């Protein structure tokens, strides 16, 4: 009898627990969750406050994207809100949205031009602390406001934030810009000497179409944007930082032009301190191939290849030099030369780091380029009548 009572009691307890402790403490159901895929930060019109745009996806609109050409309305909703701080503004959004914004799937943070020139660190602090932010979130700088970027309706995808993400990931194809993640940017901000860079994005709008374009990179001094690199200068930077994946290199050759594709590139930076002088030796090894030529002459000869290599070296060198000039002009160590010196000369570093702003503009950089051309594509000669000599 006693045994049976105990069993009954246990069943009772289990039933009570079963109905009371059914779910998670803060369960979020997917259908009620406003999923944020992009965040933009701007100065509010009043200039005192900060304005945050959250791009929220509308899943029901996304479903129509495969079948019908027009799935009704837009698949996203840009929710704007202002506040004294980022977190304040994001929480203010609950006045308009039906639930707490879920930012764990945020793919991109777009920083408006004004914020960038003012200094970004204080605006990114919240994202570094928030447990939902992923370190792989991308950072782009808008040439105007971030609202404008997130409002540009893309052609290939239905959500602007997704198209910006793909766009910045596609930059490695031409190597005129590179993607910068939240993680990279944090490391930049924590460096004493390295100046942060981030891709610069513009919205090109006319009456009918609107597209987004990444053109070059924004340069920061500390956390303030001070200038920008155009496309070839950006590639000059990427040569030195070792971020070149592939790209087209158009070089003049014998009054015509030859297009070379970058296949592989490596770099090595060696700082040298001799007495009071600091040298940076940049060594670049590149492999390319001929993908296009305008002349009718056959370039697949040993002699032409030797010449082309030299021209190729010059082209790479001029890209690097243009980036270097820009960086020295703005006194921004975007290449991370300071850190390279730090890694090699820890004793001298204390003095150098405090004077880095004086040293960097006049630092001597030796550029050594060893490039090679390894193939000519599917054809060796251009398609012109061949003479049988």
């Amino acid at each position, binding site marked *: 009898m006693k045994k049976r009572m105990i069993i009954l009691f246990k069943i009772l307890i289990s039933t009570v627990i079963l109905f009371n402790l059914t779910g*998670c403490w803060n369960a979020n159901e997917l259908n009620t969750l406003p999923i944020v895929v992009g965040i933009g930060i701007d100065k509010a019109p009043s200039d005192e406050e900060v304005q945050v745009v959250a791009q929220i996806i509308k899943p029901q609109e996304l479903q129509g994207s495969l079948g019908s050409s027009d799935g009704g309305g837009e698949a996203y909703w840009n929710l704007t809100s202002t506040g004294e701080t980022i977190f304040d503004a994001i929480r203010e959004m609950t006045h308009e949205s039906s639930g707490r914004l879920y930012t764990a799937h945020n793919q991109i943070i777009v920083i408006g031009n004004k914020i960038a020139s003012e200094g970004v660190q204080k605006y990114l602090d919240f994202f570094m602390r928030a447990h939902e932010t992923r*370190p792989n979130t991308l950072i782009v700088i808008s040439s105007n406001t971030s609202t404008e970027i997130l409002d540009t309706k893309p052609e290939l995808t239905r959500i602007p934030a997704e198209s910006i993400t793909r766009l910045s990931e596609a930059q490695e194809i031409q190597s005129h810009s590179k993607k910068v993640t939240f993680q990279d940017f944090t490391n930049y901000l924590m460096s004493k000497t390295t100046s942060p860079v981030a891709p610069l994005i513009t919205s090109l709008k006319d009456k009918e179409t609107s597209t987004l374009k990444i053109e070059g990179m924004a340069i920061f001094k500390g956390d303030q944007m001070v200038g920008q690199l155009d496309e070839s200068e950006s590639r000059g930077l990427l040569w030195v930082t070792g971020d070149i994946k592939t790209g087209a290199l158009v070089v003049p050759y014998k009054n015509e032009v030859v297009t070379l594709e970058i296949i592989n590139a490596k770099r090595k930076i060696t700082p040298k301190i001799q007495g009071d002088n600091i040298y940076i030796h940049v060594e670049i090894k590149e492999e390319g191939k001929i993908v296009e030529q305008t002349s009718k002459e056959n370039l697949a000869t040993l002699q032409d290849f030797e010449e082309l290599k030299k021209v190729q070296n010059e082209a790479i060198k001029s890209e690097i030099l243009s980036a270097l000039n820009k960086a020295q002009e703005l006194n921004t160590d975007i290449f991370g030369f300071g850190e390279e010196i730090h890694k090699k000369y820890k004793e001298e570093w204390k003095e150098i780091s405090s004077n880095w702003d004086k040293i960097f503009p006049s630092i001597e950089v030796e550029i050594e380029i060893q490039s090679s051309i390894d193939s000519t594509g599917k054809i060796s000669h251009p398609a012109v009548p061949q003479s049988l000599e």
Partner: protein
Amino acid sequence: MNIKEGKINNSQLMFLVASFMLGTSTFIHFMDTIAFHDSWLAILTAFVICIPFVLCYSALAKRFQGKDLIQINDIIYGSFLGKIISILYIVYFFLLLSLNLKGLGDFYVGYVMPETPKPVFIIIFALVCAYTVGHGLEPMARISHLTVTYAIFVITGTFLLLYSEVDFTNFLPIFELPIKDFIQSVHIVAAIPFCEVMVFLMVMPSLNNFGEVNKYMLLGFALGALCLLVISVRDTSVLGTSSFISNNAAYQTVRIIEIGEFFTRIEIVVAMGITICLFIKICVLYYITLASIAQLLKLKSYKTLIIPIGGIAIIIAFIAYDSIVSHNYSAKNYHVFYTIPYQFIIPPVSLLIAKLRRLPKRKGRELI
């Protein structure tokens, strides 16, 4: 009288030690704010420094076969002084138990389920530990194989997945740290994850064979230290300077993993590893606290103590520090000094006295 139930073998001891040390991996990140990219060097130095101490613990256990720390204290220091030292040790064990419970709560609230109140995790976890401890030492020792295997699997797996992100130049320049900071960070590593294995003086008496205790104790210690070293190397090489401001660099590192667009967000795997290693650690500490109190009070079994001690430990875990800042501050500045006598002074002195006085003496088959 023997209050300890069950016997463990040498390899179980080894995995128990390694698992115990891995349980601390989340709690030593504040060391990075002192040692920066030289953390790995601090870990390596602390490892070398701690080897003699670990050998001293196992030598003590081997010399007094089957006697636990409380009994050893009685034999060496006499029943009065021995009791005082034992009480101090019990307070130390108990504090470790509470602080580790608190650490678990902090980790869950900070990273896994941020809006759930901390007591929920601490109480549920303590209940599971109480259940385990109620079954004695053997079950813990048996599952420690599994926890260490899982931890090693996660550590190597994440390292391989992060291979493309690894940048070993993050460690340059080597040894940039001022010597004072270096000593401080070595001390932290030695005191918090490494020489805490001193608590195994309460576990080792349950060994079924004392022949190779030195070897297995050292192997377990080396395995645990190696895992901590690999974790530190992985975090610094992947995250670079930003790992130094992170409250939990290991978790942040794993968040970077992204293979394609689908193999991502696997940090929960790490959270599971941290949880199960902490589970072993807290169970061991729980068991040790109970066993030492029971031994001191000469109880027949420690089982009556499970609920009261667990309850007090939970309460202390709630009220221990008012913020993570004060917790880290005190761990960095007070806790490491507080542990010096327990880890670095009393065990070697005990061993020395035992050698000089040729203890333990034998009376028939009993050690006295």
